[in-house]
């Protein structure tokens, strides 16, 4: 160690004072000792980036390692720690035990009000995707409130200002919006291009390939062997609806030869009725609880198992379990009267009523259901569900006013925005009311979680178009079509947002990595890769004659999340400077092979982004210190020094 190191000097000073103190033992010396010892010696800033291994995600670990390399170049002691997906979310979202993490932001945050639960300071201490960063910014809080209560230009300006503020203060650093790449087979199912495979509705819109002689227009194979062919199908918004017009009607009720129980014995025919997916995410085979935040990726499987009052279609929320709703109420806080469809049933045969809907919203707000009814000594601690808090925070009160009618009172917000609350899954009261007690392991209550949050919920009882059939933990999951679902009749209504599924079973097969998933599809052991695959598999997909390469824009960016509760990330200036160590354009080219888009706002691609936050070759808010991925360490150091930090031997020191 060089002799001039300030920490060494300081240590020597402390030791020297100690020695003097022991020999002299005079009061003055002890006072001096206290004064000197009050000054901590400065250590190098050390940051640990948590993320998932390459098997679980083709990009996350490479992103983390590249970011860590830039941080090291700027004098920060940065490491990467890989861990399983559920473990990462448990440590980050539940235990708040992290400094930095790299993960994909779930898609519910890809709209202005989605940011409410992601960044509002009232959620800073809440577990789950509710402000996992511990970010607190009073200006941002005000803007988040404003966008809830205003409309038109006023709301737009608030959303613009909100994004500008986020871009400067960096609760998280955007890395890129990756393209969703998948491989699909066209011999059993088609219209892959128009189906949004991130949403349950997209899966419902898949049509069988047999039954008509000519393949669908979208079934042409893309031979992008060199990786330069880019097919950008419109995978968000309203595509699942438009696809229904492009397919010949082939509803199960119209084909009497198809019976749920297959007796022909040929494996080909029995497999043909199953939609087989190969996925790298094993979590759905172990846990199907819609409230378990660490086990949910995009809520696709639970979205097929559970219904909600309304569904997001890209043009707003359309009625689903609800037959209709009507908003009323003076002032700013609206009320809504929701009428359910008649004859709704759960998978276990019980009927789904307004009481279930009201129960669900009370459960989401407090899974212990103790509020109001509890006695003094039991305490009155709410235990909110770690998911759906953003949407549920719109709801002030819910009452079942009849078997099929529910009254909603909302907080101060616009009615159109309030309909977001209708998209949470409705849970059966007769199952979940037993789950409001504190969770226990072998009879011993551990921690503050309720059974509702920790149960693996297998077998699940939902009301969705698919019901649970069987699972083998870590290996497979099979869902079966629920033929009593209302959608088989409702799909004839004008404007109904879905059509009956043309497959009877959905099987999820877990594989080790994205390359193996592609190989399963290529070998006709699966119809589609259930999870998205990495850019490196694109040549392989392009070479295979029967495979269709699906590339769509994604709404779920990779982010580098900061724990704003831990120094030095508590300092927005520090976070802002950290963001300038990241070259997004380089990441897009190097890690994603071009299959991604850089962005300055989490709302990129929504039409809510102001002109000054549109990507124009470089990040104009936090421009990279360097060029082409090469960090200019001198400029980085200068910026950190300007922010009040010091360097010693090229190491960035923690502040005192």
């Amino acid at each position: 160690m060089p002799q001039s190191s300030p920490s060494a000097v300081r240590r020597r000073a402390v030791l020297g004072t100690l020695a003097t103190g022991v020999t002299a033992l005079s009061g003055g010396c002890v006072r001096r000792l206290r004064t000197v010892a009050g000054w901590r010696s400065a250590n190098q800033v050390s940051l640990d980036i948590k993320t998932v291994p390459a098997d679980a995600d083709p990009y996350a670990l490479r992103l983390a390692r590249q970011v860590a390399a830039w941080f090291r170049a700027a004098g920060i002691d940065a490491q990467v720690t890989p861990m399983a997906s559920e473990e990462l979310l448990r440590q980050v979202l539940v235990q708040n035990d992290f400094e930095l993490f790299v993960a994909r932001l779930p898609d519910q945050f890809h709209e202005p009000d989605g940011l409410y639960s992601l960044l509002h300071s009232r959620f800073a201490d809440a577990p789950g995707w509710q402000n996992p960063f511990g970010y607190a910014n009073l200006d941002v809080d005000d803007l988040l409130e404003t966008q809830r209560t205003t409309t038109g230009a006023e709301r737009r300006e608030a959303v613009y200002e909100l994004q500008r503020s986020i871009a400067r203060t960096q609760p998280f650093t955007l890395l890129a919006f990756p393209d969703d790449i998948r491989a699909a087979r066209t011999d059993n199912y088609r219209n892959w291009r128009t189906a949004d495979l991130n949403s349950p509705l997209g899966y419902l819109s898949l049509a069988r390939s047999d039954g008509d002689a000519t393949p669908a227009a979208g079934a042409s194979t893309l031979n992008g062997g060199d990786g330069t062919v880019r097919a950008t199908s419109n995978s968000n918004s309203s595509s699942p609806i438009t696809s229904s017009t492009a397919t010949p009607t082939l509803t199960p009720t119209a084909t009497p030869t198809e019976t749920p129980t297959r007796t022909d014995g040929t494996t080909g025919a029995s497999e043909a009725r199953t939609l087989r997916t190969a996925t790298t995410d094993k979590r759905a085979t172990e846990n199907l609880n819609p409230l378990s935040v660490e086990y949910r990726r995009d809520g696709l499987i639970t979205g097929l198992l559970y219904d909600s009052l309304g569904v997001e279609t890209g043009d707003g929320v359309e009625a689903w379990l609800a037959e209709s709703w009507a908003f009323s109420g003076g002032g700013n806080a609206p009320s809504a009267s929701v009428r359910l469809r008649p004859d709704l049933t759960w998978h276990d045969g019980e009927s789904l009523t307004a009481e279930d809907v009201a129960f669900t919203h009370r459960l989401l707000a407090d899974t212990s259901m103790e509020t109001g009814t509890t006695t003094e000594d039991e305490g009155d601690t709410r235990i909110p569900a770690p998911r759906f808090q953003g949407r549920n925070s719109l709801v002030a009160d819910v009452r079942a006013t009849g078997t099929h009618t529910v009254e909603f009172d909302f907080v101060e917000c616009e009615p159109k925005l309030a309909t977001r609350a209708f998209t949470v899954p409705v849970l059966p009261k007769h199952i979940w009311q037993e789950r409001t007690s504190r969770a226990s392991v072998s009879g011993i209550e551990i921690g503050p979680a309720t059974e509702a949050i920790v149960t693996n919920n297998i077998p699940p009882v939902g009301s969705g178009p698919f019901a649970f059939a069987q699972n083998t933990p870590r290996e497979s999951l099979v869902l079966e079509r629920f033929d009593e679902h209302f959608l088989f009749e409702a799909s004839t209504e004008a404007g109904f947002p879905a059509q009956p599924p043309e497959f009877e079973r959905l099987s999820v097969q877990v594989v080790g990595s994205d390359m193996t998933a592609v190989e399963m599809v290529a070998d006709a052991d699966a119809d589609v890769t259930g999870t998205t695959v990495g850019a490196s598999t694109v040549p392989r997909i392009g070479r295979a004659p029967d495979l269709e390469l699906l590339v769509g824009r994604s709404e779920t960016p990779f982010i580098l999340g900061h724990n704003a509760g831990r120094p030095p990330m508590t300092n927005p200036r520090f976070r802002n400077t950290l963001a300038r160590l990241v070259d997004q354009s380089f990441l897009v080219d190097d890690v994603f092979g071009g299959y991604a888009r850089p962005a300055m706002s989490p709302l990129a691609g929504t039409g809510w982004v102001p002109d000054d936050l549109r990507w124009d070759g470089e990040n104009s808010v936090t421009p990279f210190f360097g060029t082409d991925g090469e960090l200019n360490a001198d400029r980085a150091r200068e910026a950190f020094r300007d922010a009040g930090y010091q360097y010693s031997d090229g190491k960035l020191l923690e502040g005192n």
Partner: protein
Amino acid sequence: MALLDVVLQVGAGVFALLVTAAVLVVGPSRLRTAPRTVRANARAVAPVFIALVVVLAANGVIRDIGVELSWLIGLNITGYIHAIEGSTVAFVQSFATPALTAYFGFVYIFGYVFLLVFPLAAYAMYEESRPLRVVLFAYITNYGVGLLCYILFVAYGPRNFMPDMVQPLLYNSWPQAQLLTSQVNVNTNVFPSLHTSLSGTVALLAWRFRGVYPRWTPVAVFLGVSIAVSTMYLGIHWATDVAAGALVAFASVEAASRAADRQERGESLMPSRLRELRE
């Protein structure tokens, strides 16, 4: 079914290797007397053999619990391993050629299964039971130590930690193989390399018992070294895992020899001091 295809392929390949080696290494005369010697050896080592079966069965059951337990109490040492050895594995991979990849992929799957099974068959056909007994004891030790380490440590292999520098060569060239390997183990269990420790054990014992089957010794040593290198070459294990695996191999061979000595002298397997305490 893709998994079944892989299992059948590996089964057929290993069977062909076993038959070839039986003829060349064990030799026609011992094969002729095999029914008698195998029966005699089976009687002699039956308790140890049953113990191995129990350990393997327990391994299968505990492995599922072990993964959960490992996340609860285990130490994530991936970063430390990387800090120790840096990009050693990337250096090994810098020599990659398609031919080498094919070779190491072959020894990693086929060669490994063959290397573990053949000594059991070959030593069972030998006139004395000691080599078979030592092999069985050594396998038990390997699996026991491996299981314990897998619970205590969480570690991802280089292909999972530094995908920018280390390619998953096996799974790139033969993706279906991952269907098989993920059945056998999970990707957090890389420290130590059980591939290395078991192959090393077989190679060390082949050297120790080189008088038994002189032709087997060079084959086992060459295959053992190839398998140890293949785990790094294919990006599955760190050099640290391989070094730790080699240590486990030495230790288990030593422990197995002593255990066999004891058993052959008719002593209890419990250490003498413990027995004194009991008496």
